[in-house]
């Protein structure tokens, strides 16, 4: 596998080799993608039949790269007579300025060839390839190459043109170039990605939508974005690097919602460049004190797409907040359920939690009033359809065994929830953190009902339900002989007895009885869970523990950020600071960019954090984690119109200063 390079602007991204070429790679989503469809699967440059070799790569911005190449293979030394520069950007469309420099004192004739193809694969077909009978139509005329895919009324098209005259055929474009001694030649290639909508035109023409402008606009936008966030002053280089990286990565992951025509954050590159209820909500929660502007469009988009009916295929119920939204042909032709898919049992509670947290920071009561209807429906889902077994807990079991998700909590891989001896519990399952979120959502919903919805009766009902849930939860989930909270209860009435990071989320929610907090913290920081870099998803000693298992032993930065927030909530500031410190130290190994997950090996064994092999990067809630670590270390908490600051900083950091915190 070669190293891959990503370049993106929200809904469009390109994954290529280090020389700028796109070629199929098994298991990797190479290509140009937009709205979950691949618009280019081959984009390969050659000069006089020879491929190019990379001298260097300048990643100017997330939306703009420069590749410096020479023609021919690398030998032990490079004595190139021709240089090639590919200057690529993604803004309104993809452009590539291709320049060739002749370093000799002779005139040269060149045949510059770009091989081009598109398979119009849906991102899910890239993930799990299967032979398809889909065919594409190629039209090469007047120097323009059009590659089209049509199925019934659906149509997508890639249009490639160039500023210099090209000879276009069905497999690419050729330029005949005569280069003077020490001369230079260049052309700009444009790639447009179209999807047919109303009036037979690209669908974006029929809806009012923010369209990205030029790379200059994007550059200005990024500067404004970073300038609007608080300014960090610290003696800790690792902290300032990761802070800056987080702000830029969250800017890069901005994704334009077609529903509300404004920007929210996609979950991660390359597999998750879309709206995910859980990921988007948690990222907003992490970022509220820094980038509060992310919350309103996220709340609005998720509210607009709230579940309204029962639909087994989509695991949809009235009031439920979505899990995943996609726009590709597999969602359109209903091979996959993502239009939208509702297979997450936590997003409805997290939706209410974010609405409240955002108001606490911003004082934006209008938003809380505007989405009262949806917030009440989400709260209603928690106590009705979410409680599949009528036991007062949120349960999940997919009604779509073919393409639905087995585990509908954040640990959504098939083997994430197990007994200590490795057995998998039957469905439905009620994982512990879901109940914590439900408790928090009810408490926060009560505050909203009392202060903004003018419904004190509803507030009292929610508070009563929350207290009953807390009492019940501390009885039913507590494993009394081992003294910790079970990760789940199952349909058989068994406590699923593995020791997991989920307990940290319980602290964040406030559902843990005060008398048990010390024991919970002791276990979270024990050698079985704390690796030295962070809290593992699953404790060592469990049958399914694997330091490289996706949800069964790895360390997730986002998970640790919520755990640190939980430790802060219960007053365990020293333990919280230890997690923050370890994570910031880990970020140093990734140039400030925390990956989705890293291996659960003990810190003393590896001395550096080993990245989980196929992790998404950048990933929104990993980029959001350092923001939450900062909040926790500084002890920031809004209280009415005031901001409480109660810092507790790890010993390796002397000074943290955060200026210009946006607030009420």
């Amino acid at each position, binding site marked *: 596998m070669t190293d891959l390079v990503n370049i993106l602007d929200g809904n469009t991204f390109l994954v290529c080799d280090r020389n700028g070429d796109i070629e199929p790679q098994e298991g990797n989503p190479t290509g140009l993608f937009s709205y979950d469809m691949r618009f280019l699967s081959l984009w390969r440059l050659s000069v006089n039949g020879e491929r190019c070799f990379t001298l260097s790569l300048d990643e100017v911005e997330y939306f703009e790269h420069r590749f410096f190449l020479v023609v021919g293979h690398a030998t032990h030394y490079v004595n190139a007579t021709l240089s090639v520069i590919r200057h690529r950007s993604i803004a309104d469309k993809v452009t590539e300025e291709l320049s060739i420099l002749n370093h000799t004192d002779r005139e040269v004739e060149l045949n510059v060839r770009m091989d081009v193809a598109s398979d119009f694969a849906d991102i899910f077909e890239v993930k799990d390839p299967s032979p398809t009978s889909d065919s594409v139509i190629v039209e090469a005329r007047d120097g323009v190459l059009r590659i089209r895919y049509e199925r019934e009324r659906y149509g997508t098209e890639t249009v490639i043109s160039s500023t210099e005259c090209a000879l276009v055929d069905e497999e690419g474009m050729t330029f005949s170039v005569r280069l003077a001694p020490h001369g230079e030649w260049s052309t700009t290639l444009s790639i447009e990605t179209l999807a047919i909508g*109303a009036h037979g035109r690209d669908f974006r023409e029929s809806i009012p939508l923010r369209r990205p402008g030029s790379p200059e606009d994007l550059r200005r936008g990024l500067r404004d974005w970073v300038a609007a966030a608080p300014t960090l002053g610290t003696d800790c280089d690792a902290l300032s690097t990761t802070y800056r990286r987080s702000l830029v990565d969250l800017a890069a992951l901005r994704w334009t919602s077609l*529903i509300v025509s404004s920007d929210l954050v996609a979950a991660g590159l390359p597999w998750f460049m879309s709206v995910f209820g859980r990921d988007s909500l948690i990222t907003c929660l992490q970022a509220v004190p820094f980038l509060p502007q992310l919350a309103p469009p996220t709340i609005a988009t998720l509210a607009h797409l709230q579940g309204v009916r029962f639909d087994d295929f989509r695991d949809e119920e009235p009031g439920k907040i979505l899990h995943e939204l996609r726009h590709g042909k597999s969602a359109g032709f209903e091979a996959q359920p993502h239009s939208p898919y509702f297979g997450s049992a936590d997003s409805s509670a997290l939706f209410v939690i974010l609405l409240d947290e955002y108001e606490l920071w911003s004082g934006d009561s209008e938003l809380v009033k505007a989405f009262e209807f949806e917030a009440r429906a989400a709260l209603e889902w928690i106590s009705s359809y979410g409680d*599949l077994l009528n036991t007062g807990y949120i349960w999940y079991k997919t009604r779509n065994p073919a393409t639905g998700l087995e585990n509908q909590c954040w640990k959504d891989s098939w083997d994430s929830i197990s007994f200590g001896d490795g057995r998998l519990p039957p469905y439905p399952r009620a994982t512990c953190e879901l109940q914590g979120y439900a408790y928090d959502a009810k408490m926060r919903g009560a505050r909203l009902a009392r202060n903004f919805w003018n419904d004190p009766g509803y507030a009292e009902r929610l508070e009563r339900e929350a207290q009953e849930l807390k009492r019940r939860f501390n009885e039913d989930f507590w494993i009394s002989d081992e003294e910790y909270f079970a990760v789940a209860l199952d349909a058989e009435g068994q406590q699923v007895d593995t020791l997991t990071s989920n307990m940290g989320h319980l602290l964040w929610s406030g559902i843990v009885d005060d008398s048990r907090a010390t024991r919970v913290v002791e276990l979270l920081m024990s050698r079985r869970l704390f690796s030295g870099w962070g809290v593992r998803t699953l404790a060592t000693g469990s049958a399914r523990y694997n330091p490289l298992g996706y949800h069964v032993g790895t360390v997730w930065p986002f998970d640790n950020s919520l755990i640190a927030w939980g430790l802060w909530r219960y007053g365990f500031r020293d333990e919280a600071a230890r997690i923050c410190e370890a994570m910031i130290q880990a970020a140093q190994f990734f140039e400030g960019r925390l990956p989705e997950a890293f291996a659960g090996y003990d810190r003393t064994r590896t001395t550096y954090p080993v990245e989980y092999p196929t992790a998404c990067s950048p990933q929104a809630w990993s980029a959001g984690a350092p923001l939450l670590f900062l909040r926790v270390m500084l002890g920031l908490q809004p209280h009415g119109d005031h901001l409480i600051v109660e810092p507790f900083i790890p010993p390796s950091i002397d000074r943290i200063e955060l200026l210009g915190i946006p607030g009420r």
Partner: protein
Amino acid sequence: MAFFERLRTSATAMVPPRAAGTILFEVEKSGAQPERYYVTLGGGRAEVALDDGGGQPEPDATLSTTDDVFEALVSGRTALLSAAIRNDVRFAGDGGLLSIANRFFAAPTDGAGDDPRIRSQMEAPHGILWRVRLRDSMAKRRERKVD
């Protein structure tokens, strides 16, 4: 059309009071002029007007489709967003109103649109005895520990 008749009476339960604007539904029938329904939302209510050539307000959003696709939407055989991705429904205007329109369409009628609690509780091995089972399993655990 019965669908629009029902909207008049049941919109309050389906539509957030915040939603405002006019959605034009254009339903094409082969060989005939499309039927045009104007649904105007405000204060949680819906007014429905059939275009009879008289003056109608300029819509904020337009949803155009054929009668067979519309029938599939009404009966829950397909979902609005899927149909829009397939271009079976052409959409223009305010994207927020598309999601409001999505609230009007029914659940699938072939048994795939039932309350999931009914099935879960029928299939659950212990029904209302679940909590008794939980207490038993917790007690057994404690006993094992003591042994």
